[in-house]
């Protein structure tokens, strides 16, 4: 069972456009939602994250929108650049009293920004 569903699988956007990547979840015990950017041959890099008590968070050109009732969240990249071409992963952390704190990842979106 895939706990975090991510779409689209791939996305091509022209430079300056606003790619939007969506994620949905069912587990109401999730309480922290980060986005990661991964370039080929590198480890994932934390981009931005949100808690469910806020509906939007911006950091630079990256914005997370969060809809708690719909159990959905999305990443928007403003003024996208060819250097933003990478694979993006959404993830979620499950609130747990047992100390286990690992993340559940979506399947990833391969984003290409065309010049």
């Amino acid at each position: 069972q895939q706990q975090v569903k991510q779409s689209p699988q791939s996305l091509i956007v022209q430079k300056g456009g606003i790619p939007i990547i969506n994620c949905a979840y069912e587990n109401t015990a999730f309480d922290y939602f980060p986005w990661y950017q991964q370039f080929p041959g590198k480890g994932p890099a934390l981009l931005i994250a949100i808690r469910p008590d806020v509906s939007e968070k911006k950091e630079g050109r990256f914005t997370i929108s969060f809809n708690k009732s719909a159990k959905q969240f999305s990443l928007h990249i403003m003024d996208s650049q060819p250097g933003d071409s990478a694979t993006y992963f959404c993830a979620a952390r499950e609130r747990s009293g047992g100390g286990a704190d690992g993340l559940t990842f979506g399947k990833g979106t391969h984003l290409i920004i065309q010049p």
Partner: protein
Amino acid sequence: SAVISQKPSRDICQRGTSLTIQCQVDSQVTMMFWYRQQPGQSLTLIATANQGSEATYESGFVIDKFPISRPNLTFSTLTVSNMSPEDSSIYLCSTRGALYEQYFGPGTRLTVT
């Protein structure tokens, strides 16, 4: 954020052998995690390693196959035992920051022939 290094960065191993991957952090951290990323796929949590306690494994991963050590607050190892071609993956360690954020190392790219 912590700076995380992993050794080796890549390796090619024979079926049936074992490989130990090292993860070094430049600051003391309570929680460390090991993930697997199969080629072109997403990340899957293998286990959580807290210093001073046994690692906690996720469903589908067992200690005999992926033994983990956590001797201190800056270091951990993951061993991939009795390898098969299906173990060919990127293995990543990560640490948790002051809140819930996790930072990843560069990964170890393992190919099993």
